[in-house]
C-alpha cells in the first residue's frame, strides 16, 4: 500500500538548485537506458534516453550520464522547479534479455519552495 511507497529513496532539493538522481544497473549487456518521471496518479512519462555507445546526452534542463565501467546511470536536472517533484525511474534494455525494458526502483524528488 501507500506505506511502501513512503520508503522510497527521497531527494529533497531547494527550488532553483540542481538535482542529481542516481541509478545502478546490473546487466553489463544492457545497451539502452531510459529515464522516466512519474507524477502522482499518472503513468511514467519519458524524459530522456541514451544508448550504450554514448556516455552523455543532454535535453532541455536534463542531462543523462552513463558510466558503463561501474554500471551507473545518473539524471541531472538543472534549476529544479516545483513541477519536477515526482518519482523518477531508470530503465534498461538488453537485446540478450529479449529487448524487454527492466525498471529499477524509483527515487522520489521533493522540491522545496
Amino acid at each position, binding site marked *: 500500500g501507500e506505506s511502501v*511507497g513512503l520508503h522510497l529513496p527521497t531527494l529533497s532539493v531547494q527550488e532553483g538548485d540542481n538535482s542529481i538522481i542516481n541509478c545502478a544497473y546490473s546487466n553489463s549487456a544492457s545497451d539502452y537506458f531510459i529515464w522516466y518521471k512519474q507524477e502522482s496518479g499518472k*503513468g511514467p*512519462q519519458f524524459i530522456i*534516453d541514451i544508448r550504450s555507445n554514448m556516455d552523455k546526452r543532454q535535453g532541455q534542463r536534463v542531462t543523462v550520464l552513463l558510466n558503463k565501467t561501474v554500471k551507473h546511470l545518473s539524471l541531472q536536472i538543472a534549476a529544479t522547479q516545483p513541477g519536477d517533484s515526482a518519482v523518477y525511474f531508470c530503465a534498461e534494455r538488453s537485446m540478450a534479455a529479449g529487448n*524487454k*525494458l527492466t525498471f529499477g526502483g524509483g527515487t522520489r524528488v521533493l522540491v522545496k519552495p
Partner: protein
Amino acid sequence: EADIYQTPRYLVIGTGKKITLECSQTMGHDKMYWYQQDPGMELHLIHYSYGVNSTEKGDLSSESTVSRIRTEHFPLTLESARPSHTSQYLCASSKTGSNSPLHFGNGTRLTVT
C-alpha cells in the same frame, strides 16, 4: 503527450468477479505492454505483444490474460479477481525497433475486496 488511453481509471470489485482492463493507442505502435506497479514501486512486466495475434508472458507471473486482435487495442482480463490482484496496471506502447521508448497510459488502479 502520448496518445494511449486506459479505462477505467479506478475499479473496485469483489472477489471472484471477471474484469477486463482496456487499453487503446492511436499512434500505430506495433508493440504493446502491460506492467503491474504497487504504489511508488518499480514496474513489473506481465504481458507484451509485438503485433496483432502476438502475445507473450512477461517476467512477473500473472493470472491475467491478454489479446491483440487489433493493432490499437490490447485488453487485459482477469477471469476471477482476488485481493492479491489489487495493484495499479499500466499499459504502454512503442514503435518497432530496439531503441524506442515506451509511452505509458495513466493506469488503472484496481482494488479487489
